[in-house]
């Protein structure tokens, strides 16, 4: 690290106004993330600097300067305005990682509308519940995803516009579909940016809980203050860096640190829109001379699995700084990266709800492999006693990770679900839903979730959502879904099912059920293992004891079974 300011120095007299001053923002001013990520960077003299290097399927390459992304944002904003889309309307981005996804993000924000990014691998039912909940007015998508939208359109009265960015003119458009081609549109030099203020809503990301439908996490334009500073200090981005965030903008890392953070700093970033392969990833780093790489433990473990031999084929000497997010980074992965790249992946911890990094291994800080690090300056993080909800002082004792509310990028509500939002706060603390301990030097050590939510490859899957979808399969009588340990993804989905009379258990039915869930929800939610049961363990009151099944998978003590129903 060059010119490194230590964690201790950063802590001294910390105030978020540091970030506000650098961004020349004053309380009450207009603050629009779309403008900050493009127009402001051009005004700072970086109009010709590359903002995005893109590489897609079949080796397609594109590049955009900051002026290009400013114009593209304006052009998309103008198109949306002409359709009648206005501020605070929800506009869903349902695309692979193509340039239009990143550029539409800016365009939507510029007109004051709310971006609703959704993972393009979602199946029709996952898409439906999120669009219905947000009462989404427009969706920007590709023709490859159109069939999923057409399937649910009749049930979405609020959805008025389906905007296709790659319409094939040989094919006809159907109800509510409109074509938009960025390349064929006349670039719009100037537009009136909607005067959003600090508390104006900006991004609506969906996240899963143990029960109920997914929740829409509402963020505001003021989140920029946290996202800018954490990117600068933790990801340690400098003007000449070439940055690669491997996250998909369908998830919060892909927007907070895959769009807002780097572009508000005027940093060049790279996007690779292909599937995973160690060869392709190392080649990408070598080709673009990537200096800062922000990835996920699942990807790092997959690279470890691919072996060290392949690495020798590439020149990866450009890498200066590495960080990781999504699930706890195991100590083996930290040690491996030190051995292979000469530097460790620094683990960072945060959530969709927090909007920016909360606990981190700060650059230059002593690394304890396997630890989450310490709270970012300005963040008061503790572990709470699960009974009293008071902070635990004793080192090493496990409690609930909690934060004192008030950091700039904290969610402002769950969309249309004030009750669930209130449940996240106890005794003036925001409850993260994760458990950890703190050692005698203040380092946090992750233990696990405090609920039944499954963290697979860094993405949260609701067991409730999968169980409900399973019951829609004609053969399934009852279902219970738990996490199963997995070497690469940390956890994967496992389903226990009973069959309805007339159905016989077998491998073909198992495959049919797996594919049913994959298409309906997403590949992440697809059970990777299905176990047929004669009956599921239940309490005497008839509630399925998921806890017992979870303990069985993890080889844990099954605990108190006094409420278990007898045969």
């Amino acid at each position, binding site marked *: 690290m060059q010119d490194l300011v230590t964690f201790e120095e950063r802590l001294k007299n910390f105030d978020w106004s540091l970030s506000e001053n650098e961004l020349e923002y004053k309380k009450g001013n207009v603050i629009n993330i779309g403008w900050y990520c493009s127009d402001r960077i051009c005004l700072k003299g970086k109009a010709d600097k590359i903002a995005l290097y893109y590489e897609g399927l079949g080796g397609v390459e594109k590049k955009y300067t900051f002026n290009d992304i400013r114009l593209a944002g304006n052009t998309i904003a103008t198109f949306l305005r002409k359709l009648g889309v206005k501020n605070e309307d929800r506009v869903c981005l349902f695309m*692979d990682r193509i340039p239009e996804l990143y550029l539409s993000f800016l365009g939507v924000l510029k007109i004051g509308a709310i971006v609703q990014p959704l993972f393009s691998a979602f199946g029709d039912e996952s898409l439906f519940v999120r669009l219905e909940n947000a009462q989404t007015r427009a969706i920007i998508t590709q*023709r*490859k995803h159109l069939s999923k939208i057409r399937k649910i359109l009749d049930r979405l009265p609020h959805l008025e516009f389906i905007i296709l960015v790659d319409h094939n003119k040989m094919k006809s458009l159907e109800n509510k579909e409109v074509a938009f081609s960025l390349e064929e549109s006349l670039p719009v030099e100037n537009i009136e940016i909607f005067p959003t203020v600090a508390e104006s809503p900006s991004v609506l990301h969906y996240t899963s809980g143990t029960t109920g439908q997914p929740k829409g996490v509402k963020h505001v334009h003021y989140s920029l203050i946290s996202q800018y500073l954490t990117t600068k200090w933790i990801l340690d981005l400098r003007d000449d860096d070439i940055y690669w965030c491997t996250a998909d903008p369908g998830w919060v890392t892909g927007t907070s640190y895959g769009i807002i953070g780097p572009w508000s700093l005027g940093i060049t970033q790279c996007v690779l829109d*292909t*599937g*995973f392969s160690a060869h392709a990833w190392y080649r990408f780093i070598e080709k673009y001379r990537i200096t800062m790489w922000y990835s996920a433990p699942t990807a790092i473990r997959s690279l470890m699995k691919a072996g060290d031999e392949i690495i020798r084929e590439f020149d990866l000497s450009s890498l200066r700084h590495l960080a990781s997010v999504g699930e706890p980074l195991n100590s083996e992965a930290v040690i491996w990266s030190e051995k292979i790249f000469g530097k460790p992946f620094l683990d960072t911890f945060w959530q969709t709800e927090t909007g920016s990094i909360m606990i981190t291994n700060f650059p230059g800080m002593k690394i304890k492999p396997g630890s989450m690090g310490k709270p970012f300056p300005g963040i008061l993080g503790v572990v709470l006693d699960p009974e009293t909800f008071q902070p635990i002082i004793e080192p090493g004792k496990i409690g609930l990770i909690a934060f004192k509310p008030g950091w700039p990028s904290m969610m402002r509500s769950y969309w249309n679900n004030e009750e669930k939002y209130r449940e996240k706060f106890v005794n003036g603390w925001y409850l993260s839903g994760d458990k950890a301990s703190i050692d005698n030097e203040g380092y946090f050590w992750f233990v696990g979730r405090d609920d039944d939510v499954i963290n697979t490859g860094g993405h949260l899957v609701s067991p409730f959502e999968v169980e409900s979808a399973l019951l829609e399969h004609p053969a399934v009588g009852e279902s219970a879904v738990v996490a199963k340990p997995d070497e690469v993804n940390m956890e994967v989905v496992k389903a226990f099912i009973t069959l309805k009379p007339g159905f016989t258990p077998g*491998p073909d039915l198992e*495959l049919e059920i797996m594919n049913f869930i994959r298409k309906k929800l997403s590949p992440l939610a697809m059970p*990777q293992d299905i176990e047929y049961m004669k009956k599921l363990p239940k309490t005497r009151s008839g509630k399925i004891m998921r806890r017992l099944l979870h303990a069985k998978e993890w080889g844990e003590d099954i605990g108190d079974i006094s409420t278990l129903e007898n045969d």
Partner: protein
Amino acid sequence: MEEINLKEMKDLVLNYVINEYIEDEDEIITYDTPLISSGYVDSFSMVSLLVFLENKFKIKIPPNKATPEAFDSVNSIVSLVNQYLK
């Protein structure tokens, strides 16, 4: 299962991949099209493809052989399957 020739095996796998994983009907998928590295089949979905192969060909592929590289095209998949066919 009944004996099938190499071409029939490839077509069986190709049709399954097209029907199950390819969303855009305009995409042209051949025996050589990269499936995993191109993103047509993600790493989670690869598990269902593995189950399909094991069911259809009545084989068991060891987990360490079911790699993204081995599953990256219809050709490489069929070559892998052939190693475990009796």
